[in-house]
């Protein structure tokens, strides 16, 4: 294998990972089987790390492979596997085509205080129980949110336009997809990151990877002393400078003929660009790097925090009670309902076990939100408190939890939402339901409704005789699973007559039992 082919291989592998990871987030029809999604996301660093801390197993050991890979070959992860890296590379390529001249990069000083400072603070805050900072810096989560919150609505719109065309021709093979929009404010963060990355890549290539990315900085500690490195052969090098012009990380210092391999993201652009083949990727035993270690102190501090991160994971409760919300829809029932729905806790998805568990393990990548077939999962703004910014919760206005579905737990990459077998999921109580008689249309209008009892999959709410021939809902919470079907379908506005309040610790509901039927065999038709 010629060294100049390294770049081609890198491009191929990174495109493969970009496409496969994008497909996982754009699997709007839910057709990809969960084990396939697990394989595609296996090597993503932060999700795998979090999953491993929760339950050490082969299935969550992807990050260990990345650590070994980096120790041997350098930061191949950053160029080949990280989807945000591949996305940035497409931006760089785009900018290159945009400008009339070839985009030129140049050597940049390492911003060690910034990158190690960010990494240290992130690790400390993660150890002390808040994943907020990590979720704001993790490249996988950023990629997920950009895909799920910004790209998904575009894909849905494109699909629906195509459907209109097909439908005009009488073909029903394609069908319109629904899209339950999250709160507009939750879109600000991925939008901000997208614009930030566009600015960074336009001027300085992979600047994010060597400043704010905690994975990049962590791996740089290992790649600094990796087995295989990129280095310049001084006897051949003509100091033409072509390699430094192409270096997306700005780590080739021609004055001193060194390559700061800790910042190198292994894109191999330099090797391809050298006319003399003076810059090469070879074993570090061949050529000792004479560079100094300006960041030894920071490295020690970071490694200590890494060990602490593994050992100590205290759980701190940080969910604050949110303010009650009224439905902002035009009133349809005759008398607008009066009693406000007071909710103490948001409803966490089944499999999250407890709200604390969700907040301690979720990095808000939004894969569950993207894949939820009813669109009930939505990113929370303040419902979980500041630590729960953009974490998923069940919003009964948007949808309800389909009784036979376990999709969110099946695909969660960090294990924040655990995989539940379907029988167990049907008995997992994620919330308790409250019925407000004063809001109910049977009480106020004296007319039959029954929508809530219709939808209840466990008949926790059932219709019982009321005044005259009317029937009114009656609730028995021990059967309730908190799916929110009743709240979703209740026609009353602005405050619903039946709603779900989240449980901070999920429970097991009682199995619904049917009364035995006394069936009289029919001899003849009764008419």
């Amino acid at each position, binding site marked *: 294998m010629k060294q100049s082919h390294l770049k081609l291989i890198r491009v191929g592998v990174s495109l493969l990972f970009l496409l496969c990871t994008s497909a996982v987030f754009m699997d709007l*029809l*839910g057709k990809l089987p969960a084990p396939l999604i697990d394989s595609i996301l296996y090597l993503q660093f932060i999700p795998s790390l979090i999953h491993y801390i929760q339950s050490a197993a082969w299935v969550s050991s992807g990050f260990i492979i990345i650590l070994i890979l980096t120790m041997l070959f350098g930061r191949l992860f950053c160029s080949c596997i990280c989807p945000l890296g591949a996305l940035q590379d497409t931006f760089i390529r785009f900018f290159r085509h945009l400008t009339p001249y070839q985009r030129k990069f140049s050597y940049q000083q390492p911003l060690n205080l910034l990158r190690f400072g960010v990494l240290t603070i992130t690790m400390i805050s993660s150890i002390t129980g808040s994943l907020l900072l990590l979720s704001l810096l993790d490249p996988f989560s950023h990629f997920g949110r950009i895909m799920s919150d910004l790209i998904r609505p575009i894909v849905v719109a494109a699909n629906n336009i195509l459907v209109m065309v097909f439908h005009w021709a009488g073909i*029903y093979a394609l*069908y*319109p997809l*629904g899209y339950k929009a999250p709160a507009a404010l939750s879109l600000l963060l991925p939008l901000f990151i997208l614009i930030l990355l566009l600015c960074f890549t336009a001027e300085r290539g992979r600047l994010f990877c060597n400043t704010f990315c905690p994975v990049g900085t962590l791996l740089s500690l290992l790649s600094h002393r990796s087995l295989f490195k990129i280095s310049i052969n001084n006897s051949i090098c003509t100091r033409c400078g072509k390699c430094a012009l192409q270096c997306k990380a700005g780590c080739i210092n021609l004055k001193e003929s060194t390559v700061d391999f800790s910042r190198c993201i292994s894109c191999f652009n330099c090797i391809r660009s050298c006319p003399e083949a003076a810059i090469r990727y070879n074993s570090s035993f061949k050529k000792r790097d004479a560079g100094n270690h300006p960041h030894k102190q920071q490295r020690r501090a970071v490694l200590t925090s890494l060990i602490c991160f593994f050992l100590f994971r205290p759980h701190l409760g940080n969910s604050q009670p949110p303010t009650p919300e009224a439905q902002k829809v035009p009133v*349809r*029932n*005759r008398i607008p309902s009066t009693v406000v729905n007071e909710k103490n806790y948001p409803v966490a998805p089944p499999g999250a076990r407890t709200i604390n568990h969700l907040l301690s393990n979720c990095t808000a990548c939004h894969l569950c939100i993207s894949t939820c*077939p*009813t669109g009930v999962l939505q990113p929370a703004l303040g419902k979980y408190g500041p630590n729960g910014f953009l974490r998923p919760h069940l919003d009964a206005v948007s949808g309800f939890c*389909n*009784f*036979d*579905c376990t999709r969110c737990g099946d695909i969660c990459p960090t294990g924040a939402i655990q995989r539940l077998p379907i029988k167990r999921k049907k008995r997992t109580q994620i919330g308790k339901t409250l019925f407000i008689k004063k809001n109910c*249309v049977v009480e106020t*209008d004296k*007319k*039959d*409704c*029954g*929508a809530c*009892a*219709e*939808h*209840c*999959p*466990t*008949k926790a709410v*059932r*219709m019982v005789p009321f005044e005259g*021939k009317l*029937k009114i809902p009656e609730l028995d919470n021990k059967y309730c699973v908190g799916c929110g079907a009743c709240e979703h*379908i209740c*026609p*009353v506005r602005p405050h619903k007559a039946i709603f779900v309040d989240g449980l901070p610790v999920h429970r097991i509901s009682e199995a*619904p*039992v*049917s*009364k*035995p*039927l006394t*069936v*009289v065999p*029919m001899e*003849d*038709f*009764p*008419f």
Partner: protein
Amino acid sequence: MKRRQFLKTSARASLMAGSAALLGPCASLLANQSLQSYNLVAIKNSTPDKMFDAGIKSLGGMQSFVKKGQTVVVKPNIAWDVNPELAANTHPLLVQRIVEHCFEAGAKKVYVFDHTCDQWRNTYKKSGIEKAVKHAGGTMAPGNNEKYFHPVQVTGKRLKDAQEHELVLESDVFINVPVLKSHGSASITVSMKNLMGIVWDRRHWHSNDLHQCIADFSCYRKPDLNVVDAYNVMMQNGPRGVSIDDVVNMKSQLISTDMVTADTAAAKLFGINPDDVGYIRYAAQQGAGRNDLNNLAIKKISL
């Protein structure tokens, strides 16, 4: 003499004509019954497809309802994301057989859809109806997007307007295939309640006197044929059901062109008094159909 002869001849002729009218339905002398002869056909003791074969034959075959080159829309009950044994949806075998009959009668295109309650793609699949329809050569159409529903005037007592699915508005023939089951608030759900699956905003019906809205809509939209699936009947905890213990294997079926007749007979089959069911009472009063089973021509078939 001519005038007297004329008067005698006319008197005799009118007497003959008048007495002929007193003879009763002559059509009953013919071997092949026309669809007007039976108001209701009730079949029992076989599988849904065989029962339908026997039942539709008594009404003159599917050719009486579907002409060559027409488009048909079949509306079963595909509401809940559950397996067929739980009887929350119409039996897939019955839907398959109906679609097959339509094609045999010469239909150009047969669409099947419902505005499901649960997530629609899962529901179409798990109910077994999507597979059955594809097997018979029909087309499953989605019913869960508002753009498919167009505003119509209903001018009922409580229901003034609604949004109706375009397939029902545009197709030549509309076949309603409900499943008989208990219902928490409507007592039972049969053909008239099944029509709630062809409109978009059901919530409005629930918050504005459900029974009256059902009756109003049944005065407005009458399907060409109603086939009530009473093979597996959910006797309690309807309409979604909780477990298989709620289901009775009744092995029956009712076919009628009149929804009120079908629902009245279905109520009796279920074991309740049809007059206790609000929407059946209102619909009969408003003239949507006939509920006086004693005066109607009923064909009973036991296989």
